[in-house]
């Protein structure tokens, strides 16, 4: 579904992605972790073209990024992207946020889009917030609207870029619960997160990155109980100590 082959990227002189080779199968849930600045956000931002790659191949849903034949706008409609900062549209209500792309991009009739928008918002536990503006919602609620906004497009792939990092601790679980629900519906997911409980519960694979390179990949059990490299051991000892 997603395949990186020898992908490199630089920000100026900074080599942010170093020879990444990695593939994600359909219906697979992959968690990407690593210290900050390790390139994990950049990695998933490349998949929907928010960042461009310098060399190597990146094939998403059968289409090679950067090819003339690849229509990036069309491809993006198949990829949901959840941001750390939610990025809801502040001038639109929750319902308008989730129906904007279905109406304008998918060309679904408004009434139909609103019906499935309401259904989706109810599914993420926001049945009473259809007409609330983002500024009237808590962080956890905003992130759940953001996830619903992606799901309303019926995407093939969902990408999450540190979806709980900007949240107060007591709101993290409500967002993770929704994400677990999405994973259980067999969505292809790539999740940048440090929530190791989530990784253990739903991920088929954990990818550990450091300094722009993939250092280690393995099943959650392998990775957490028997990390193979010094870097991953050091990282895990820091985040699992508490």
């Amino acid at each position, binding site marked *: 579904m997603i395949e990186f082959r020898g992908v490199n990227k630089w920000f100026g002189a900074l080599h942010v992605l170093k020879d990444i080779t990695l593939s994600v199968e359909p219906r697979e849930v992959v968690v990407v972790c690593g210290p900050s600045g390790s390139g994990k956000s950049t990695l998933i931002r490349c998949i929907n073209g928010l960042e461009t790659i310098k060399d190597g191949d990146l094939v998403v849903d059968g289409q090679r990024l950067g090819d003339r034949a690849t229509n990036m*706008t069309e491809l993006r409609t198949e990829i949901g992207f959840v941001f750390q900062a939610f990025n809801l549209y*502040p001038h*639109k209500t929750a319902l308008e946020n989730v129906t904007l792309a279905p109406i*304008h991009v998918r060309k679904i009739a408004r009434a139909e889009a609103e019906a499935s928008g309401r259904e989706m918002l109810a599914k993420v536990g926001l049945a009473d917030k259809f007409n609330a*503006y983002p500024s009237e919602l808590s962080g956890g609620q905003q992130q759940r609207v953001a996830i619903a906004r992606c799901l309303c497009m019926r995407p093939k792939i969902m990408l999450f870029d540190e979806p709980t990092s900007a949240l107060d601790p007591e709101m993290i679980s409500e967002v993770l619960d929704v994400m677990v629900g999405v994973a259980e519906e067999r969505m292809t997911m790539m999740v940048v997160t440090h929530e190791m409980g989530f990784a253990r519960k739903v991920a088929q694979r954990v990818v550990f990155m450091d300094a722009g390179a993939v250092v280690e990949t393995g099943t959650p059990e392998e990775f957490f109980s028997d990390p193979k490299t010094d870097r991953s051991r050091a990282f895990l000892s820091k985040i699992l100590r508490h």
Partner: protein
Amino acid sequence: MIWFQLQSLMGSYPLALRGLGMTIALSGISLVLGTILGFAFGVLRTSGSRLLDSAIGLWVDLIRGTPFLVQIFLIFFILPELGVELDAFTAGIIALTNLAACFICEIVAAGIRSVPTGQVEAALASGLSQWQRMRQVVLPQAMRVSLPPLVGQYVLLIKDSSVVSAIGLTDLTRVGWLVVQRVPNGLLVFAIVGIGYFAVCYPLILLARRLERRMSAAHGEVQL
């Protein structure tokens, strides 16, 4: 003496109304055209094409850096030399529309730049086209920032329209010049001219203030 002058002034009220009408027509048409053009320029300036950005930027700087009077003279006296016949009203409209477009372009571009990148990325990620991103996500948020200075700019432009009297258009200011030749009381005549402009501008000043106050309270799109 004053009483006599006032009476004489009353006699010129048809002329004064014509002047007021000219000022309103000229400003109204130019502001509408200038707003449309200014928005187009503002959107183009931020569209990502460096060539367009610097071309528009240069033009805006040129217009902002020269007196409006000089611009009007250039349009009114130079264009006919090049074979373009213009009456004073058309020349006035062209000059004022151009001036309005340049100022409004900067206000709109600043508003667009104030929209956080995350908003554009979210719109991009959900597959909205460039025009849809602008129309649905960026412009409504840019308008929140731009509307108060935009209305404030309208006030300045209406006052700038007085410069068109220099090419013989009988607007409010020129009516003042004409009347003062018959009624030799400049203070009185131009006080009345001032009141005329103020009557047109004051509602806009109030509107700008109201919008500014709403801006701090509203979370959503601005409703007039």
